[in-house]
């Protein structure tokens, strides 16, 4: 029985190693931790228009209705995969989408991309130096936020919006927020 004591450190060590491995394999990666911005007002930002447009996009524009804020870039492949779906959202008039055109190397790149694939956005802000993206705690594109009528962030979607994500998560949240009075 006394001998058992000598094995305890080994057992503890194996336990710690085991727990770490399980956490690494199945746990949430640090970059996907829930955003601290949830249930907080959209941070203040004012972004200028992209080339060829006259109005930009500022955080003030998000008050008064439930909105979807979507961060994209012409260089971002995953953004193109969600793009047809965003076009459908626009065609069916489901929710106004506000875009942040993030880190375009060239002022023409964003406008050309939108001309080629379609423009689903109500307003677009140009964000060449990540000021908007950093204020929203963005780590990669695409990322989308659901903002309620008062301008409070209610949900953050990391990665492309797929029809499944829309049906199961985003759309129910949007409908619920619309029903909220006040």
């Amino acid at each position, binding site marked *: 029985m006394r001998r058992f004591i000598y094995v305890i450190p080994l057992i503890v060590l194996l336990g710690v190693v085991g727990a770490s491995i399980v956490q690494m394999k199945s746990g949430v990666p640090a970059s996907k*931790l829930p955003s601290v911005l949830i249930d907080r007002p959209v941070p203040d930002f004012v972004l200028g228009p992209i080339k060829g447009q006259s109005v930009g996009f500022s955080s003030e524009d998000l008050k008064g209705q439930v909105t979807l804020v979507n961060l994209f870039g012409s260089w971002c492949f995953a953004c193109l995969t969600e793009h047809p779906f965003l076009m459908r959202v626009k065609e069916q008039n489901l929710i106004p989408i506000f875009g942040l055109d993030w880190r375009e190397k060239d002022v023409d790149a964003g406008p050309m991309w939108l001309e080629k694939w379609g423009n689903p956005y109500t307003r677009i802000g140009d964000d060449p130096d990540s*000021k908007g993206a950093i204020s929203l705690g963005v780590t990669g594109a695409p990322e989308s936020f659901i903002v309620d009528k008062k301008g409070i962030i209610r949900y953050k979607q990391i990665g492309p919006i797929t029809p499944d994500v829309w049906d199961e998560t985003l759309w129910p949240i949007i409908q619920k927020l619309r029903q909220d009075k006040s």
Partner: protein
Amino acid sequence: MKKLLSILAFMFLALSVYSPVSAIEPDEILSDPALETRAREVSKQLRCVVCQNQSIDDSNADLARDMRLLVRDRILAGDTNQGVLDYMVSSYGDYVLLKPPFKTSTALLWLGPFIIFVLGFIAVGFYFRKRPVEKTISTINHTPLDDDERAKIERALSSTNENEGNTK
């Protein structure tokens, strides 16, 4: 030997004075050296959120560069070092700080090593207290063998003698 030591000491000193290469590009550096020093200090405490284990000061990632520039913008605009860190935390959470702050949720992280050290210390104390070595020896010396034990020893001794005799 002395010479070797002094060379080693010199190398160590040189390493500690010379800060490792940072990812800052010349166009980012502020013209005011005092402000630039502050910007470096803040940048070293901020995690590059796309590379995880580097500070934005070390990282070549695009987003890290933009974060460095934003740090400098805010410092130029008159923000304090803590103010800049707070701004980053407000959008990225504590995760953006390379050194996690002490909170109830991180208490185990900070105190864990000390707790383990104290437990280990206690365990070592118990280990040595449970073996009063000298006492054991003295009790052995003072208890004489009883008849049974003597008989056993004699039997054992005589049997080994016989065995030795047989092998010869």
